[in-house]
């Protein structure tokens, strides 16, 4: 068992938050990815244990969604949207520029382990700011070569998001059981305030 105590506490808290522990699967996967940067089979099994659910169910759910990584990659996740609206404004060229600049192909990680570059046909939801990329789940829109250069420059030295902030224990909630989940989720939101 490799998850931190705090993460396990969060997972257990999620299980209480919903009428069915199963609803806690996706929040639990996020908690694990937040701690470790990705979700391994061992973590899936651990989630299953804490939620008292069959592990096949956890894998079935986690593998369905595109945002859970299954193995360690670069410290930073850069995803270029190549769907139609971005394509109309040069997403292919942005991707080519990124590949050239980083010296890797989409799907690969830079030698220094700083950046994993990917492209996706999945609309990331910033069509009005095309071309765009998603950097560690934050949007960079209206991309130009200068803008891309600046982002990469920053990422070269920045630690991975899951290394910056560690999950905290869920705050105990006084007097409220059924609703505790909502408050219980608060530290997560506060934590990421810079």
């Amino acid at each position, binding site marked *: 068992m490799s998850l931190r105590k705090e993460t396990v506490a969060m997972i257990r808290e999620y299980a209480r938050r919903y009428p069915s522990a199963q609803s806690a699967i996706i929040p639990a996967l996020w908690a694990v990815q937040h701690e470790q940067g990705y979700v391994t*089979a061992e973590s*899936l099994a651990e989630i299953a244990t804490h939620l008292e659910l069959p592990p*096949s169910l956890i*894998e079935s759910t986690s593998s369905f969604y595109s945002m859970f990584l299954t193995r360690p990659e670069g410290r930073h996740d850069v995803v270029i949207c190549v769907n139609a609206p971005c394509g109309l404004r040069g997403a292919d060229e942005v991707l080519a520029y990124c590949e050239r600049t980083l010296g890797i192909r989409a799907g690969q990680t830079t030698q220094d382990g700083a950046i994993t570059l990917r492209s996706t046909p999945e609309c990331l939801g910033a069509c009005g700011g095309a071309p765009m990329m998603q950097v560690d789940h934050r949007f960079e829109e209206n991309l130009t070569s200068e803008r891309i250069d600046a982002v990469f420059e920053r990422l070269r030295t920045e630690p991975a998001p899951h290394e910056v902030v560690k999950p905290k224990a869920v705050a105990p909630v006084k007097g409220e059981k059924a609703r505790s989940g909502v408050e219980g989720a608060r530290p997560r939101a506060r934590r990421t305030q810079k």
Partner: protein
Amino acid sequence: MAVVTDQVTLTVDGQSVTVAKGTLILDAAKKLGIEIPIFCSHPKMEPVAVCRMCLVEVEKMPKLQPACAVYVMDGMVVRTRTEQVQRYQNGVLEFLLANHPLDCPICDKGGECPLQDQTYTYGPGASRYDFPKKHFDKAVPLSDKILLDRERCVLCWRCTRFSAEISGERELALIQRGKDTIIGTFNDQPARSEYQGNWTEICPVGALTSRQYRFISRPWDLDRTATICPGCSMGCNVHADARHNRLGRFQARENLAVDDGWLCDFGRYSFPSFQREGIERPRVRRDGRLEEVSYEEAMAAAAQSLRRAGPATAGWASPAATNEELFLFQRLLREVLATPHLDHGRGRGEAATALEPDDAALPIADLERCDHVLLLGGQAVIDAAPVLHLRLFKSERKGVRVHRVDDARAALEAVPAEAQAVGIVSSLGRKPEVDSLQGKLARKVKGSVRRLLVPDGPNGRGATDLGFGPGRGPGYASLDGKAGRARPDWEAAGVRALYLFEASPLHDFQASGEEREWIQRLETVVLQRPRPSPLDDLAHVILPGRAFVEKAGTVTNMEGRVQRIRPAIDAAVVRDDWKILQGVAQALGADWRYRDPDEVFADLSRAVPAYRADRIGERALWSERA
């Protein structure tokens, strides 16, 4: 004023049909003999409508509708063979086959494959898909029993739904999504389910196949025999499929009252134990050596030795022997040799626990109609009859409260006083506890309390019913003070000769070390058995008989259902066991003239009126006992 009714009338392809409300279009059409092709739909699972094979036209509905998931409505007009439907059926099969490997020539499912059959009936002659096919893993060992071919899989969800809805184990699941979707176990760990063989039967393609049956036969080359599984006292109905007189597989032969269409892996994959390797001749020990002789010589030799021992003979029969055999054997022992020492208890010198008719008072299917079921002993009971778990899980899904408890006090507490119908399921070994629990429950609850005990072997129930034990005669008749001794007491009772009748490698004598030493000292050991046995070197006479899958007769399952077994493979010159028993009796001077097992059954029925020839397949009627 409209008459309120729970029937609706609809039209399918111009024919009118009246069915109950809540019927699916698919089943209404079936009632008219109209077949709508399906892959994902399964009568025992919730509709999912994922394969989209069964789409039909329904008047006033703009889109084609899935017949497997849409319920009938009064006045509905359904068309299953319009041009639109047929063109679409071509299309959906083209989709299903686009990335299918089309390796039918080397696929075990070939010849009994719904995908193959429906492609012939409803599919296009050729595919327009001219890209390289998607590749997935082939022949993935899901366990030591099952191979998974992910290229052949059409993602109908039947196996995953079985895992969720029928066995409840949730071992198989869908992984990934979209075009990358596959089925599998968590992290590719070996599947542990006891019910995996069912996956192969419900798979509508060759994705899930049995390793045991791999490349064994084409379905049309199999000789199919309707018989009963030799695995346990559940009495699941099976097809025993043989090719060139060798068993290839067991498949489920649905009996809603017993197995509900499912088998466990222990039973399904037990058949290799029954493969006959060559033909044996009877043998008699002369000067310390076993010599081959004719059946007549061997039976005469057995009779001669047994006559000497007479009432000091003990007889043991396997709980896998047929009712007919058991009836004859107990006659031979009681009437001809005048010995009261009979037993069918297995397992290291144990006596068989005496059952009563009431131990089968709760029919298997009635578990679904209880409101509380106590599984006293939990998994140990399931291990003795694994298909019971599927029935209990089904019952739970229907709202029955199933309590898995290990002690009688917890069991008593688990059931509330207002319970209407309580069932107790346990193993034979816990009979005293069950009896006392039933008494207490009967006083506690308003409703009925019935029990179902799981005996040992496919005919442990029949062995007791027919009096193959020391305490009671056929039909539980009193022995008027002439009760014999049970297996553990035979030595103390001065038994000098032993007649052992084994009938199945799954349910043989299993001598303990002490017993072996005792047997070694006996003056006579007659061994009638279907295949070489560890007791051979102690035997004075060996009479080769037939195994469970090689003979005709009846066996009685745990709920008292008398079912027919039939020979699936021909044991050729190896003699039928009932004939051997009659031969030995005749050699001892008895005037027996049975010509076939049916005549034995007729006699048996006179002694045990609960067993009736006109009710084979039904439960024995003990309430009509004289």
